[in-house]
Every structure is written in C-alpha cells, then in structure tokens.
C-alpha cells in the first residue's frame, strides 16, 4: 500500500511503491495532465510539483512522495475556472499540439511561487528542462511573463 497526496486529497493505492508517480497519477488517479514523453527526465512533459518543486513524474517513484504534497495542473483550475497561469496561456493561445503544455505550466508555476516577478531571462533559464517541438516557446514565455508582470505590486 502506498499513500499519495495529490492536489490536497490523500489517496491510498495498492501499487508497487517503485511505480513512477506519472503512472499512478494517470492510471490509478485518472489525471490526464502529466504526460509520458521520454521516461528519462529529458523532456518535462510529465512535470508536476512535489512540495512546490518541479519534478519529473516519470522518474519519481511513488515511495518518494510519501507524506509530501503532489500538485498537478488539475489542481490549478478547470476549463470553467482556470488558474492565473492557465488563463494567461489560454489568452496567449500558448499551445499548438499542447502535449508539452501541462508540464510547461507546472514548471512555470513553481518559478512564480518562488519568485513572483522573474525577468524574461530568469523565465527562459528556468524553463530550459522542458521541450516543445511545435515551436510555441515565444507564446509560452509571453504567457508566463504576463502573469509575472501582472502580479507586480
């Protein structure tokens, strides 16, 4: 038995504790946001937050999440009530195929929680681990930037 707290809800799962978090999220908890991309922590499509830090869901075993808070894009908002970053991504139409986008949002979320007003250079540096093949980067940067600037006091 493994316990997993995801978006504030505690779950008890009958799975091998070595199972990567990504598979538990997608299959046992039926959350679509985190995606399988490479299984090697090279593309970031599976990025979720673990105690506020961005991690690769494909590499992080469920056992490592015991007693910690997992957050996925589902925890940020819904299509009806999107969170700030989600709303900004929608406003900027910052997706093409969109397969990478949940991972992008979660990595950006981690940055903005730690540094609410990053510079564009900081945004680009922070986003480096996540790959996009469609070439949507300019819009993703713009969407993050708008939230970063909009929340300035």
């Amino acid at each position, binding site marked *: 038995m493994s316990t997993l707290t995801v978006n504030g809800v505690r779950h008890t799962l009958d*799975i*091998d504790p070595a*199972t*990567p978090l990504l*598979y538990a999220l*997608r*299959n046992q908890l*039926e*959350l*679509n*946001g985190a*995606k*399988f*991309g*490479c*299984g*090697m922590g*090279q*593309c970031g*499509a599976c990025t979720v937050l673990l105690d506020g830090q961005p991690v690769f869901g494909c590499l992080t075993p469920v056992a490592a999440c015991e007693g910690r808070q997992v957050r*996925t*894009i*589902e925890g*940020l*908002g*819904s*299509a009806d009530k*999107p969170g700030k970053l*989600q709303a900004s*991504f*929608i406003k900027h*139409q910052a*997706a*093409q*195929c*969109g*397969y*990478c*986008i*949940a991972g992008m*949002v979660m990595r950006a979320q981690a940055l903005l929680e730690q540094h609410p007003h990053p510079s564009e250079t900081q945004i*680009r*540096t922070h*986003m*480096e681990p*996540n*790959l*996009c*093949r*469609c*070439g*949507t*980067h*300019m*819009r993703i*940067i713009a969407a993050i930037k708008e939230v970063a600037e909009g929340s300035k006091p």
Partner: protein
Amino acid sequence: MNAATIDLRRRAVMQAGALVLGFTLLPRRALAEFNGMGVPPVANKDLAGSLQRTPMLDAWIKIAADGKVTVFTGKVELGTGVRTALLQVAAEQLDVAPAAIHFITGDTSLTPNEGFTAGSHTMADSGTALLNAAAQVRALVVQGAAAQFKLDAATLKTSNGQVIAPDGRMMHYGDAVRAVDLHRAAQVRSPLKPARDYSVIGQSLPRVDIPAKLTGGAAYVQDMRLPGMVHARVVRPPAYGARLLSADARAVARMPGVLKVHVDGNYLAVIASDEWQAVQAMRTLSASARWQRGPALPSPANIHATLRALPSQDIVVEDKKAKTGKAVLTLKHRYTKQYVLHGSIGPSCSVALLEQGDMTVWTHTQGVYPLRAALAELLAMPLDDVRCIHTESAGCYGQNGADDVAADAALLARVLPGRPVRVQLMRDQENQWEPYAPAMSTQLAASLDAEGKICDWQYELWSGSHNERPGNAGKLIPAQLLARPFVPSPSQPMPMPEGGGDRNAIPLYTLPQAKVVNHFLPVTPLRTSAMRSLGAHINLFAIEGMMDDLAAAARTDPVAFRLRHMDDPRAREVMERAATQFGWNQRKRRRDHGFGFAFGQYKNIMAYVALAVEIRVERSTGAVHIVRVTAAVDCGQGVNPDGIRNQVEGGILQSASWTLYEKLQFTPDGITSVDWASYPIMRYSNVPDKVDVVLIDRPGAPFLGVAEAAQGPMAGALGNALADATGKRWFDLPLAGPQLMR
C-alpha cells in the same frame, strides 16, 4: 579527383547492395496496392476543394429536426488549430454560431474520405469544400423556410441558426429543412456570402481544443480510458532486419499483471492489466530476447556519397532553354541535409477493440481511410468491419509512429477480443523505428550575365522517399515483423507541382534558362517518409543561399537582387513588407552579428513567406543565437489570423531547430539517437529573442496552406545570416556547432 570519386561510388554501391538485398528478400508479396493518397476518384472536377471527390452535401453538413447542425470533415487536428479554422468556415457560411455546431473530424464511419491531413492542404481541400457546402446548405435552408412562410427567399435573412422573415417570423434550421433533402450533389456555383460581410472568418476565434489541454481534460488518445481497457507494450528488434533467435516468453508471462505475451515471428508484445506492469514486462522480455543482426547500415560519415550512388529514377521537372546573355560568372555549390527525426514529444499511441467481429481503432494517424485499408489487409478483414477514429496526440509533423502503433493496437486487440487494448511506444522505439525525413544532397550551378541578372540555373537533387504512408499493410512496421511478413509496396516519387524531394526545387524567380532534375532513390538504407515541408527545407536553403551569393557577386543588395528576378506581385509584396518591417535597409553591421533574408512560396502554389533574421555567433563556442526574426505572410483569405501567426512562429522555431542542430545519429549497427540527449533539439536557451509575423490580408481570396510555409525560408535566411556573420558560406546542415568557432 576523378578516380577518387569513382572509388567512392563503387564502395557505396557495395554497401548499398547489401541493404537492397536485405529489404527485397522479404518473403510474401503484398496482395493489394492502394492509391498512395487513398482518396476516392474525382466525381466532378468543377466542384470546389474536396467536394470534387465527395460531392453530396449531407456528407459534410447534417441538420437535425431540432435544428442542431453537425459538420463533418475528413481532415484531422494535428495540433495546428485547423479544427477551429474549419469550424469558422462552416459557421460563417451557415450563419450558425461556431459553438452551436457539432463538429466531427476523420472517422471512417462518419466523415468524408479526404485522404491524409498533410502538406498544408487542409484549408484548401476541406476548408474550400466546407465554405461552398455550407453556402449551398444555407441557401437550401432559406428556400425551405421561404416555401413554408410562402415568401420570396430573397426577402429572408439568416442569423444564429434561424431564418428570419421581414415580418419578424423566425424558423430554426431544423424546421426549415423539414421538406428539403440535403442528400444531393453540390452545385458548381455557390451562393457565397461576400468576404466584406464576414464576421467569423478573419477573426481570431480562440482554439476550441486549448482549454482542455491546459486543464487536464481528456484531449489525446493517450488519455483514453475505456471500460476493461488493458495496456500493451511492444518489443521492437534492436535494428532493421534483425531476426529473433529466442525470448523468454514463459518467464514474462508469470510476471504480475501480465495477461498475454505475444510472439509472432520477429514481433513481440506484452499485454498487462496495468500500464506500469506492462512496461516492466516489456523490459524483461526485451532483456531476454536474443537477435541475429540484420544488414549493416552505411557509415554516417559518407552517407551522401552512399545515397548518390544508389540506383535512381531521374526526373527532369524543369527544362527551360532560352537565348540568354553571356555568362560572366558561374557559381557551383553542393548542399547537404542529414536524416532528421520528427521528434513528437509524445511517443505514438493507439487504442483498439475487437468486438463481435468489428475492429475499432482510435488513432492519431494523418489518414483514417488509408490506414483502415492497410489494417484491413493486415488483419484479413473486410474493409467495412474496420473503423478508424482519429483521436489527437502530440504533434506528428508528418508520418511518425502513428500508423505503426495503430497496427500494434489492432494486432493485439485481436489477441484479446472484447478488451480495449492501449499501446504506447517508448521513446527509444519511436526514435529508432519512425520514418525519418530523408537525408538529401543537392547541387546547384548558377550564372550571371553582364547586367547582373541570372542567365542560367542548373539544379540537381538526390533524395529517398518522402511518402511512405500506408499504402499497403507492408508499409506498417508491425506487419513487416510478423512470421508471415507483409512487403511494402514500392516507393513512388510524388509528382510536381507539389513534389516530394523536389518540393520547391524550381525557383519561383524569373529565370530564362533553368534545368531541375530530381534523382529519386526508391530504395535507401534508412526508413523515411513525410516530414513537414519535405524537400522544400533544403531546396530553399540551397536556392536562397545561391541568391545571396549571386547578389554579392553582382554587388547588389540581397533583397533588391531578389526583387529584380521576381515578377509575381504577391511574392514581391511579402518581400517588401518583410524588409520594411525588419528595417532591412537600416541594418547596421556589428561584430559577430549577421543578417539574412529569404523567400519562398510553399510548393510554388501555396502561402508566400518572406523573412529576415538577425543572428549572433559566439566565437568561443560556435553557438548561434537568433536575435530577431520578421516574417511577412500571404496565405490568401486568412481564416484565423492568430492561428496563422502561431503556425508561422512555430514553423520558424521548428525550422531553426532542424537547420541549426538536428542530425540523426546512427552507426552500422543501428540508430543511436534513442533519446533527447542523443538527438538534441531547440531548448529555451536557443529560442529567438523576438519573432514578428506580419499578415497580408486578402479578403475573399482562395485559402493557401500555410502551416509548413515558413520552414524553407527560415532555413534560407539562417544560412544567409550565418554567411553574413562569419564571412563564409556553410553548405552542410545542421549549421551550428564547433566548426563555427573562431
């Protein structure tokens, strides 16, 4: 020199000979051949777009008794936003709100057969069909209402799915068409709403698919969870042509959750109730498998010489002779491009279910109908018993593993009838087995006369196939691995004007004398197929590079030199707009910075793109930094301007990645670009500082495909900027790297 060339050719032929043998000695000939594009025959060539092949109006638009409108397209959403654009087209001419339309894409049980969603054809094919079908259906709706109102149809208006009479009476479309049969062939002329009255076309309607993708909605085939669904993983051979000697299926069958271990010739797969259990079983099965290696791949170091020495079909696609001025200068260059990976962020995935003799396959193929034909052949099932339903996935950018994994799902669904089987490839499987963009080389000799005008142009290119889509079952990798394997139908060149390797090989510039030859290589060592823009990427890299070299020789500004050779007014306009917006004439020389300009009309028949770039090259590392890009685009009537900008921006960045960084790694033993470390693509640190896209509005003009239009020009502009920055022309892609260190 000559002797060395001959020797090289001889060695290459020998290497290639072994490979040709490896591929042609497969046992069973495929039974049937299919039309490469798999579309129905033309029923009426005077109709618009895909109406030519699917002329019945109710194949495109149905109106239910309650007024609900359903619109159908045989095209599919590949991540370009085209679903939203098609919806806008139908909504505009129907006078129905986009949100009120139920919109169904590629499904062999429901939609027209429009072949493949490829080649930036969707708006021209399906968009044009829907534009005209919707206008005709709206007219029939109005006539139906007029008969019931007993009024002249000309006095009626439509809005929001209602017909409105001058006296204020209203009737919804369902009631209006009660006595109208929409099962009728389209007319040649459509009562189109004039472009000046457009309120939906030309608006940047937010994409209908984006909210779900941003909030964890079920947006992809990967997200499907059918009742009773099981998970499969395949084990692919380590390299082309490898034969299975042994594998410990029995040990794997005892692993937790494993429902089935399936071995058929060189085809191996596991099915488990849980996905992670399937992955673990796949790994164990893979580790236990012993293989006899297949024929060696050629050395990557001299891949272009190897390819040029292969048997070719030599197709002269342009041969224009004229009395021209005497050449005062001739430049001759050779250009090369490596094999390039599609590199979808999500490895291919499919779900299939065999139930009561019917096979249903949820797939992110580019063509549900051609895939259905190939799967029916593979499964020896009647066509009507197989249904392919398009379900989105990560962007494919051409033929990736989508069709192969659909075959995996279908084969494994047959092993476990009644249970939906979901198969996803692993990253290394996608990379090692996908059909790459072909490695290509080209050779160009061009001459200037005393007036500084081009008087002769001689271009040749060598390329393997850019179109290996199904096709017959033998085009699918799983079918080739079975104990009774299927054989791929022979590769065919794609005819001009669209072309394959020769796409955009004929310059749009005015050239009095020109010859262009496509050396099509039907059999090449690596599996290849369509990837965005096909040969246009290297052809425009070569053409636009030569234009700059000739401009320099003529001591003329590169933009002015292009304009001197361009008669097409729309081409001239995008060039002038890009140059003005970029500030081309105000550019200032700075140390290590370079400026480049390029132009292309995609396939010489679709969208016009001109772009200017500024780069900076770091002397110590050879890194290329893109400072800014300005593109001007004319794609006829724009349906969704923001969607077009998104596509062009994406094309610019994607092409920058191909042009600067990408090269498939392989050794004689197999493909070694198995992950993102061994196949690096653009990351945020390589992204341009700024990208501007200027759209030229052409109200009412035909839709011109735009999604792949920026790739070629961006390669050309980067090549030119790099030559400007380094003072030296670079001919071999990818361009960035230690060779640029100074």
